[in-house]
């Protein structure tokens, strides 16, 4: 292999990493306040909901499917958890209990759309695009009915405290406090490190990444995406596996909705309406093929970071936000073109 081919191959395989670095350097130089502790944390905080949705989408896309319902399942979950926690608090439950109960019930209800998706796709052989589109409509309609078209408020303030809290509070010269803001004299500087919701997100994303990469469940997922007939003949219970995949996807979307509710202290039916396509975009930028069989969670997260750095960077620069869509459109096409021109280079690692 010539030296030049070596460089092309190097760039071709890692273009998304390189692109991300270029983005970071560019915005650090141009956008004031971007490359600071706060700036970085804001980007991470903003990425949490999309990261969970994109992780969900990765699992589904690896099987060769697509889940259009994640965005509205997220909105559905935010609405249900907001309504329930508000109602429980009104009934006189302690805010901790109200919130916990609401979250648990929401997580349980949130499995339902995924179960329906899975049954339709696996049992009735409905194309995933249609099955999840139909379920999206049903979840959206249901959450609109619950909220009567407006936002669900009345969430206990505890959600705000946790959702906008930080993992570590550092008081220079005095000590460290975990999760709770230390009581200090007014005027004492407190450094906030890592939003709590980022910690939660990273935990769940890591579990999903482990599941996909290191377990038999993950192997079967790739096998189904590679060739479902072969997977079936190899003795994989593809029906049950696909149902499980769509249920996990729905679970992660529900979690994303709960995190949205904690971060923004509201439930909105259309909270995730623009995230549905963004999540697919992130997966594709991460190098996965919509035909299935390829894709990893960490590369998807890189795609998510590329998108949110772009959005936040442009926002800080004061560029009109709709330029984001042009940029995303171009990146998306660019991602696939690289895929087309260097097919043997991009897929090597998967």
């Amino acid at each position, binding site marked *: 292999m010539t030296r030049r081919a070596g460089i092309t191959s190097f760039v071709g395989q890692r273009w998304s990493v390189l692109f991300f670095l270029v983005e970071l350097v560019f915005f650090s130089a141009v956008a004031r306040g971007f490359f600071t502790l706060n700036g970085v944390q804001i980007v991470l905080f903003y990425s949490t909901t999309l990261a969970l949705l994109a992780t969900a989408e990765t699992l589904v896309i690896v099987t060769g499917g697509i889940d259009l319902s994640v965005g509205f399942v997220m909105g559905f979950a935010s609405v249900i958890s907001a309504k329930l926690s508000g109602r429980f608090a009104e009934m006189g439950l302690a805010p901790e209990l109200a919130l916990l109960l609401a979250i648990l019930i929401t997580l349980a209800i949130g499995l339902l759309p995924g179960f329906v998706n899975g049954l*339709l796709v696996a049992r009735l052989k409905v194309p995933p695009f*249609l099955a999840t589109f139909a379920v999206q409509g049903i979840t959206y*309609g249901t959450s609109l009915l619950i909220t009567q078209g407006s936002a669900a408020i009345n969430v206990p303030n505890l959600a705000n405290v946790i959702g906008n809290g930080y993992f570590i509070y550092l008081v220079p010269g005095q000590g460290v406090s975990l999760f709770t803001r230390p009581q200090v004299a007014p005027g004492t500087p407190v450094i906030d490190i890592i939003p709590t919701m980022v910690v939660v997100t990273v935990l769940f994303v890591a579990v999903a990444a482990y599941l996909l990469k290191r377990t038999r469940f993950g192997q079967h997922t790739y096998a189904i995406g590679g060739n479902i007939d072969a997977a079936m003949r190899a003795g994989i219970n593809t029906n049950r596996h696909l149902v499980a995949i769509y249920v996990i996807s729905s679970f992660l979307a529900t979690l994303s909705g709960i995190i949205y509710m904690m971060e923004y202290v509201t439930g909105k039916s259309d909270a995730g309406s623009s995230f549905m396509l963004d999540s697919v975009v992130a997966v594709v930028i991460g190098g996965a093929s919509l035909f299935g069989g390829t894709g990893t969670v960490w590369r998807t997260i890189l795609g998510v970071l590329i998108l949110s750095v772009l959005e936040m960077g442009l926002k800080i620069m004061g560029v009109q936000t709709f330029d984001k869509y042009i940029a995303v*459109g171009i990146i998306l096409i660019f991602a*696939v073109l690289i895929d*087309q021109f260097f097919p043997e280079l991009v897929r090597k690692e998967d």
Partner: protein
Amino acid sequence: MGDKALVTNNGRARTPAMSLLARNWAFFFLVLTLVVFSFTGKNFFAINNFQNIVHLGTTALLLACAETFVIITGGIDLSVGYVLGLSAVSASSAMQVLYAAHWSVAACILVGIGVGLVSSLACGLAAGILVSRYRVPPFIATLGTQGIAIGVTYHICGGFPVWYLPPGLTEIGNAYVLYIHPASGAWSFFSRPAGIAASQIKELVRVIPVSFILIFVFLIVLWHLLKNTRFGQHTYAIGGSMDAAVRAGINTRRHLIFVYVLSAFLAGLAGIVDLFQTGTGNFTTFGAQLELFAIAAVIIGGASLMGGKGRVLASVVGVILLKVLENGLNLSGVEPFYRYIAVGLILIVAVVIDQLFPDLF
């Protein structure tokens, strides 16, 4: 295995009536909804209401036709909803600028329509080249052009609807072919009879919106194009098997570009129609999901996302079914939110029927 099992397993053993029912279930379902809503909906069963349903469904019909062609080739066009917005906004902006520069109204409108259509053709050309020449999956290519269309649209209009347009747009867009004033017996074509004051407009019987003429002409042309021409045959061939189509000597690249350009053109036309109906250049809001509803209508009409299947008139039935549901539920006093649930459920029924009786389509 008894005879019964044989009969149920063999599609050809079914009665012709059942086959007809399954093949055109959307149509029969439409008839059923019409009957039900006639009883439950206030003023549902009225000429005026039916005219309104189709008149307000013009853009959806155009988008569904666009999507029909693309889906038959085995592709998908996610950009149509935002190409509609781009076309409406660029056409209206051109009209606004020219009108402010004291051009004549007719010139403003004609140039504006041209600008809108050209902007949409550009989107279709880009998507077509990406799909055919560079083999970008249609889902991604049209998602990319969708993003670019959104960005350009907002650049043009700044996030606000475009106003200060030449007069007469809505008068053209919402005109009827025939106006009759039963009390005085006066009647006229295309505008209200002379001598009838604006305050008497409610007494007028208005027959056939002009949008019917447009949609009728386009449906006939597209139906003919798909059903009776070589272009249509090639479209089905590409969707049936791309490789076979290439080997049969079809210039698949050029054909795919044509299909995406046609799709964008129809979306652009829908934008122009929207402009004439509302009198403002509206951008497409996020979460409008026009493209997803168009795709849903096409699938309800019996097309398959795998390609090779689909009919223009069946897609039309799909659109009308969705619109009638919306209208009928509304007039029956059902909360509008149920519409999303109803559409979702119907879609599931559609695809399950498609899966259970594949031999019938």
